[in-house]
C-alpha cells in the first residue's frame, strides 16, 4: 500500500519520497486493477474462477450493507489482537528470563527451537479439536505463531544492552526495577519493535489458519463459505479485507516506532 513499508522493513530512512508516499503505490494499485480487468475480458473466464474487479466491488458493497463483512471482520480482528497480545506478553516474560539466565536458556531453548520445526498448519487442527471451533483456539494459534519472532527479538534486544550502561546504573545504586524501566526497556525497544512488526502480520495468518481449519465465524470462515458456494467474489472480498487488516496492524506498529524511536531518526 505504501512504499515506506518496504523502506521501514529494511530500516532505511528515505526522506526524499515522503513527499508522495501515497501517489506512487496508488498508481501501482490502479495498474494492477486495470491488468486484472483486462485479463477477465480477454480470457472470458467464468466469474467463479476469476470475478472482475467490478463484480468484487459490488460483492464488497453488498457484504458491507448486510453486515456480514463487518461482523466477520470484527471477529477476526478481536482474535488477531488478542492472539498478538497474548503472544507478545508471553514472549516478553519468557524472553526476559532467557536473557537474564544462561541456565534457563539452556533448559528451554532446545524445546523452543524444536517447536519451530512444527508447522503451525499441522497442529492447528489439533488445537481446534481440543479447544473447539470458537475464538479461543484462534487466539491460541495466533499467540503461538507470534510468540517466537517476538521472543527472539526480545532476547537479542536485551542482550545488546551495553554492559557499560549497566555499570552506570549500578554506580548510581539503581534498583532492579529502575534498571528495567530506565535502561533495559528503552535500550531493547528498537529490536523488540522489529519483532513486533513481524508478529503483527503473523497474528493475522495465525487467526485465519485457525478459521480455515474449523470455525463458524471470521474472515477465514467467510473464505470457506465463498469457496463452498462458488461465490469467488466473496473470497476476494475476504482476502482484501485481511490484507487491509494486516496493513492496519503493521501501520500501528510503525506509528509506535516513529513515536518511541524518534531519537534514532536522522
Amino acid at each position, binding site marked *: 500500500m505504501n512504499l515506506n513499508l518496504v523502506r521501514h522493513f529494511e530500516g532505511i530512512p528515505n526522506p526524499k519520497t515522503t513527499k508522495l508516499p501515497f501517489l506512487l503505490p496508488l498508481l501501482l494499485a490502479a495498474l494492477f486493477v486495470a491488468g486484472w480487468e483486462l485479463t477477465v475480458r480477454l480470457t472470458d473466464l467464468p466469474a467463479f474462477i476469476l470475478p472482475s474487479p467490478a463484480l468484487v466491488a459490488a460483492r464488497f458493497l453488498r457484504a458491507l450493507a448486510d453486515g456480514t463483512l463487518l461482523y466477520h471482520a470484527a471477529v477476526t480482528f478481536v482474535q488477531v489482537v488478542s492472539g498478538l497480545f497474548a503472544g507478545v506478553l508471553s514472549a516478553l516474560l519468557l524472553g526476559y528470563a532467557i536473557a537474564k539466565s544462561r541456565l534457563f536458556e539452556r533448559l528451554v531453548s532446545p524445546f523452543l527451537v524444536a517447536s519451530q520445526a512444527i508447522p503451525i498448519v499441522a497442529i492447528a487442527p489439533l488445537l481446534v479439536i481440543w479447544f473447539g471451533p470458537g475464538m479461543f483456539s484462534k487466539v491460541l494459534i495466533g499467540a503461538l505463531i507470534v510468540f517466537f519472532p517476538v521472543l527472539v527479538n526480545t532476547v537479542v534486544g536485551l542482550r545488546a544492552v551495553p554492559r557499560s550502561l549497566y555499570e552506570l546504573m549500578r554506580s548510581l545504586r539503581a534498583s532492579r526495577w*529502575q534498571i528495567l524501566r530506565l535502561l533495559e526497556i528503552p535500550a531493547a525497544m528498537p529490536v523488540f519493535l522489529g519483532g513486533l512488526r513481524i508478529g503483527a502480520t503473523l497474528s493475522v495468518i495465525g487467526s485465519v489458519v485457525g478459521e480455515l481449519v474449523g470455525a463458524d465465524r471470521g474472515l477465514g470462515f467467510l473464505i470457506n463459505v465463498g469457496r463452498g458456494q462458488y461465490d469467488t467474489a466473496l473470497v476476494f472480498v475476504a482476502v482484501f479485507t485481511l490484507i487491509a487488516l494486516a496493513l492496519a496492524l503493521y501501520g500501528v506498529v510503525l506509528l509506535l516506532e516513529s513515536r518511541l524511536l524518534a531519537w534514532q531518526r536522522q
Partner: protein
Amino acid sequence: MTRKTPPPVVSVHHLSVLFADGGASSPEEGFHALGPVTFSVYPREFVCVLGPSGSGKSTLLRALAGLLSPTKGEISFAGGERPRIGFVFQQANLMPWRSVLANITLPLEIENVPAGAARLRALELVELVGLQGFENSLPRDLSGGMAQRVALARALAHDPEILLLDEPFGSLDALTRERMWSELSRIWQARQKTVIMVTHSISEALFLADRVLVLTARPGRVKLDLTVDLPRPREEEMRYTLHFGRLARRLKEAIE
C-alpha cells in the same frame, strides 16, 4: 601521610582483587589484577591514580564504586556505608535515547527527585559545564568533548560525596583534553568534592591533583604517594616551571 584531622572519606586497607579467569576454580588461582594496596583519601582532596597499563587502576576505581567486590582487604567509608558516588567512565556512556538534559537528570530520577526540581538542577549543571543551548540535543549530535561534559554533569547531578573518574579524557584530542582540565579544576573548586581520578598522563595528574598515587605494574601496588604542592589555580605556564619538572620526573621514575 599522617594527617590526623579530618578523618578520611575513604580508607583502603590491603585491598586485593583477583579475577577467576581462564578456568581457575577459585579466585586465589586466578588473575591477580590489583593489590594489596592501602591508602586513604581525605575530604575535598583531588587524588590522581597513575600507573602503567595493567596496573589495576580501573579495577581499583570499580572496587571503590562497588561495581566489583574485593577479593581480600576492605574499603571503608566515613559514614560507614558507601556514600553517593558520581562515576565518569572512559567513554561518555550516555543513553542515546535521552536528551542532554534527560541524561543529566538520570541520577535524580533514580533517587526519586521530583521532575521539576531535577530539571532545575540539571539546567544549573548544563550551565556549569558550558552546554547552554544543547539541553535538548541527543548524544549522537555531540562531539566527544561535549559528551564527556554531559557525563561530568550527570556525575555531579545527585550531589555525590565522591567523584570517581576513570581516564575521562583519554578519548579526547589533546586540545580538548587540556580545556577539560581547566574546566574540571574550576568545577572541583566550585563544588568541593572529593575526587579520585585514574589517568595515565603525568601532566594531567600534576595539573589537577593534590596528591598522586603511583601504582606498580600488575598486580598494582602503591609505589609512590606524592603530594603536589603546586599553587592553584594552575595555569598553562606552570608546566614550564622547574618545580613542575621536578615533580614530573619523580612520577616518571616511579612509573618505570
